[in-house]
């Protein structure tokens, strides 16, 4: 008998397995992305790339919360689209399953980033919608269905590559926003980004992060992410990439049962790059035990 297969295809893309490196995790540079792929990730999402180089906030930018979560306010540090495009050009021809995450303050900035990057060889874009809306009223882009629609439309008009809209979990309107993204041309959704949070140090009496507010990732947000994925799966008919707190095979399977066609891992990388192989092995063992032959058979089975 042939063993279960980990291959997945979504939005016209094919991956060796459903695991992905999440944006902003080790993948600041192309060598890091490559290493994730070599270590067993089916694909790797880059750090979010903006128009100009950004240094991000001063340290502390990361703090481990007592609840198994990681709080970060890195501040979207990135080398800017031009330099990242150059870096990508060096791996041209290697057909690496790289997805480029991009951000901007509104449709105009997003478009410019795409214009700079689009001729490079990579599989798809992930649109990071969790940044302040600088071109508009100043709230977070990902909380306003109209702004999301305008961003996705703008990007859609400039590239043929598949688009994944990465959603914020910090709003009660996630379904509405997902619908706006899909209606405007998104091929899939990534759910979710970090949860807004804070840590205060009782000795200094002040917030620990320099930026005060940060995004919570890791264990603490898994069950929150799971609820969002489950809800989106029932309401929106495009593939969903699950993300948030996955650090072992059981978590990955939970997400697929909720409706995720693929699963990103971020904070779990504190275990080292070996985590991709460990999780893939666990999924295969589970599939064998439960007699699933394809990943697709699990997707959404929790409904």
């Amino acid at each position, binding site marked *: 008998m042939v063993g279960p297969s980990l291959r997945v295809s979504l939005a016209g893309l094919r991956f060796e397995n459903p695991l992905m490196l999440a944006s902003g995790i080790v993948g600041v540079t192309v060598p890091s992305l490559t290493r994730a792929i070599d270590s067993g990730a089916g694909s790797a999402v880059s*750090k979010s790339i903006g128009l100009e*180089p950004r*240094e991000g906030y001063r*340290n502390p930018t990361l703090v*481990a919360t007592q609840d198994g979560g990681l709080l970060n306010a890195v501040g979207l*540090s990135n080398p800017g689209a031009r330099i990242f495009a150059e870096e990508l050009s060096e791996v041209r021809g290697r057909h690496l399953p790289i997805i480029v995450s991009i951000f901007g303050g509104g449709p105009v900035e997003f478009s410019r980033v795409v214009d700079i990057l689009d001729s490079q060889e990579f599989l798809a874009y992930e649109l990071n919608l969790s940044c302040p809306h600088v071109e508009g009223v100043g709230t977070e882009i990902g909380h306003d269905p109209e702004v999301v629609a305008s961003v996705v439309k703008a990007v859609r008009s400039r590239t043929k590559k598949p688009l994944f809209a990465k959603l914020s979990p910090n709003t009660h309107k996630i379904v509405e926003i997902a619908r706006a993204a899909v209606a405007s041309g998104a091929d899939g959704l990534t759910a979710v980004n970090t949860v807004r949070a804070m840590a205060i140090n009782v000795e*200094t009496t002040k917030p620990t992060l320099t930026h005060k507010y940060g995004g919570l990732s890791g264990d603490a947000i898994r069950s929150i992410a799971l609820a969002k994925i489950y809800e989106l799966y029932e309401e929106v008919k495009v593939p969903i990439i699950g993300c948030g707190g996955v650090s072992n095979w059981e978590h990955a399977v939970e997400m697929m049962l909720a409706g995720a066609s693929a699963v990103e891992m971020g904070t779990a990388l504190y275990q080292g790059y070996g985590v991709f192989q460990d999780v893939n092995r666990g999924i295969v063992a589970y599939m064998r035990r439960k007699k699933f032959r394809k990943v697709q058979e699990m997707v959404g089975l929790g409904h």
Partner: protein
Amino acid sequence: MRRVTKNVRENRTINTVYFNDEESSRARPGQFVMVWEPGYDEFPMSLSNYDSKGLCSVTVKPWGPGSGEMVKARRGDLIGIRGPYGRPFTVDKSSALLVGGGTGLAPLLPLAKALVKEGGRVAVVIGGRSKPDLLFEEQMRRAVRRKNLFITTDDGTYGHKGFPTDLAESMIKERRVGRVYTCGPEIMMRKLYDISVTAGVEFEASLERGMKCGIGICGSCTVGKNLLCRDGAVLDAKDLKDSLDEFGVLQRDQSGRYIKV
């Protein structure tokens, strides 16, 4: 958080700041901690001392706001310490040559002590621009045999005149050196790498890069495919082989762009 127990001036710029921390006191030579100077910065520092009673230290040169505040630390001040992190130096009986410059002596001090304890032959070269820039001469003198401690100054104000790399090169050629250990300016370390590889001698260096998380998540500390905080900060010749366009040449700044080291 930890309280500073004392702050000792080492030379005209460098201070050693002591604190109590159980976890850090179980470190191995070459491991580092993330030091948080509240209100200023959080930055990686090699542990320069740690004893079985939990007393630890880092040895700081003021550069930016964080280290600038740290050298002024006073007994009782609160600092954050997390770690120890990273891969330590190899401690075995191979005949060792330690070459350090500036605050690079920090991780080499506990290394020298550990190597001597292990029973190997240990020679140390301390380099500095001028006599007042030398670090840990006294401490190293207590750690290794007098005849195995060598000092160089660029201007010849003390010890051998010249670069520590020159002295090290002749020592590698003359003597039976099993492994070169180094920490200091990256250009010096790169030179030593080239010398060691040519001579067929093992090589380990503790590098420096900007760090945010210290635990292999943020990716800000890359040297090629290596994450310095996890795969290093001590890298050996094998690790470095694929990163010779970076090692001693380029590093990524906070945004991820390459700049000169």
